[in-house]
């Protein structure tokens, strides 16, 4: 028995299953050889080290980390990131401005069963007066279901987790902006699928747009109390080059702020994805616990969290709590302008489902009041509800088409 033999036993993981005769020879050698004795002892100590179980959320966090932008963030470019429709102001971390359009989703009757595809036109950009595309007229107009008995529970899908797409390096160098219009499906679990480019200002923006959109998560639409897939949703992702004529700022301070912001955003998104995954797995209690925990960490006044509660309570069929959560969500938006992306339609639908028709109408009127006269707001989304209310004799001048 030589030192090499001892090493070989250890190298080949045979130490634990030795024949008695071999074991005796080894013990003889170990007693005489200080090095081998030390090596043997070290090996058994190493084997005894207890390794904790894999943290349950490690995969999610590792996957998220793998999708973070890898290059250093470009300087002084603004990134209003949208989470759950809430614009997080003051972001300056990556190089993309996303003008997020509200994706229209039709309101589908619980009775109708199979829903029609979403309308093809992006509706309202949050920065500009909305311009409806040519095909806006073909958007579903509701389906003529106006009976009081038919409780409407369909909600529009709402974007929940968005990550900024990369800025194509050449475009950034040339300070070239661009936009890509895309269409995609959202599965019943909230994943984005079948992303395709409808048109783009420049082909080099297409790949990053598709890559980013493919990682986004949505709260899936609810039809008749069930989460369902949505197809043919449109969105536009827009890149705006960093501006030259911004006042000089303390760059280090700005970078530190951007870094801190990005960190919190990533942590928040990752926590939010845990809640989403639990929701997808029908672990409603687990999802709620995760939201509770997030509230403790990130504060109680975040519209994105409150909106998620509203959604979760809706899935649970707890409409009164859902209404309460959505009202709080709306109140949590900092300005009337931000309130435009609040969950008005889900809230109005919930009021309708609870037979509080005046409150449903009032919700639509409150939403309408956020827009200028003549400016079009989410026509496709709320038309069906307006029609149903009208059939009940409930109308408001501001809601009538000009």
């Amino acid at each position: 028995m030589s030192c090499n033999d001892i090493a070989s036993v250890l190298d080949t993981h045979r130490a634990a299953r030795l024949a008695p005769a071999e074991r005796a020879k080894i013990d003889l050698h170990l007693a005489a050889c200080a090095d081998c004795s030390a090596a043997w002892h070290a090996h058994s100590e190493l084997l005894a080290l207890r390794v904790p179980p894999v943290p349950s959320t490690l995969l999610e966090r590792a996957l998220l980390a793998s999708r973070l932008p890898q290059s250093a963030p470009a300087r002084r470019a603004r990134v209003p990131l949208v989470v759950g429709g809430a614009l997080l102001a003051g972001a300056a971390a990556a190089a993309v401005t996303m003008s997020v359009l509200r994706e229209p989703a039709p309101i589908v009757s619980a009775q109708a069963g199979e829903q029609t595809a979403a309308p093809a036109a992006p509706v309202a950009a949050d920065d500009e007066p909305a311009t409806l595309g040519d095909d806006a007229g073909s958007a579903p107009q509701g389906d003529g279901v106006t009976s009081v008995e038919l409780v409407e529970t369909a909600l529009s899908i709402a974007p929940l987790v968005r990550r900024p797409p990369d800025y194509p390096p050449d475009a950034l160098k040339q300070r070239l902006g661009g936009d890509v219009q895309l269409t995609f499906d959202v599965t019943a679990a909230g994943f984005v699928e079948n992303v395709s480019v409808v048109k783009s200002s420049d082909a080099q923006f297409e790949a990053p747009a598709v890559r980013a959109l493919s990682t986004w998560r949505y709260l899936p639409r609810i039809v008749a109390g069930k989460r369902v897939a949505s197809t043919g949703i449109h969105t536009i992702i827009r890149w705006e080059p960093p501006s030259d004529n911004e006042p000089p700022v303390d760059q280090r301070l700005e970078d530190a702020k951007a870094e801190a912001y990005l960190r919190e955003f990533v942590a928040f998104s990752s926590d939010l994805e845990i809640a989403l995954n639990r929701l997808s797995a029908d672990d409603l209690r687990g999802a709620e616990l995760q939201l509770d925990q997030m509230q403790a960490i990130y504060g109680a006044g975040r519209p994105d969290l409150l909106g998620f509660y509203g959604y979760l309570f809706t899935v649970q069929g707890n409409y009164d709590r859902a209404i309460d959560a959505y009202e709080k969500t709306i109140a949590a938006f900092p300005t009337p302008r931000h309130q435009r992306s609040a969950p008005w339609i889900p809230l109005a639908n919930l009021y309708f489902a609870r037979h509080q028709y005046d409150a449903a109408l009032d919700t639509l009127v409150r939403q309408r009041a956020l827009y200028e006269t003549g400016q079009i707001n989410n026509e496709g989304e709320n038309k069906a509800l307006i029609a149903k209310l009208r059939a009940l004799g409930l109308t408001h001048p501001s809601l009538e088409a000009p």
Partner: protein
Amino acid sequence: MAHPEFRELVAPHLTALFRSAYRLTGNRHDAEDVVQEVCVRAYTHLATLRTLEQPKTWLLKIAYRVFVDGLRRRTRSPVRATGEELDSTRSSDEPTPEESAEAELAERRLLGALAKLDRGQRALLALQVEGYTVAELTAMTDLSADVLKARLYRARVRLGKLLAADGKAPTFALVK
């Protein structure tokens, strides 16, 4: 749809990755950082990962590099676990408190001794004791089998002697 595919490729090896990363670093935080860094690097080579017959060996090779290179870019992994799991290192099939205290003491001694080895030695020991064969280790480390075996032996001897020296010293000393 790169992301679901990446998940499918990586998920089966997550346990192996985490276990090795824990053995490499000796604590959960750094182990998670290693795993995240491995995923970050692997994601940028998705095309390669896709074609591999032994993705686990390849992922562990990255983990080995990440550790030996000193996890330089750890600041880029801001993604952390929250609350629940940070403190629940121990699983439920716990030994008794006394056994646990003793085992913990032994663990601390072992980790202390490991910290005195250089990263290369430590990495070899960590991966070897996770059960990988010499052939797998050579693939992970790019060392020849002879060099690998020699270094493994030296690393064990050194660790054993560090442990022995530590064992002779009084574990607790009264401080006046």
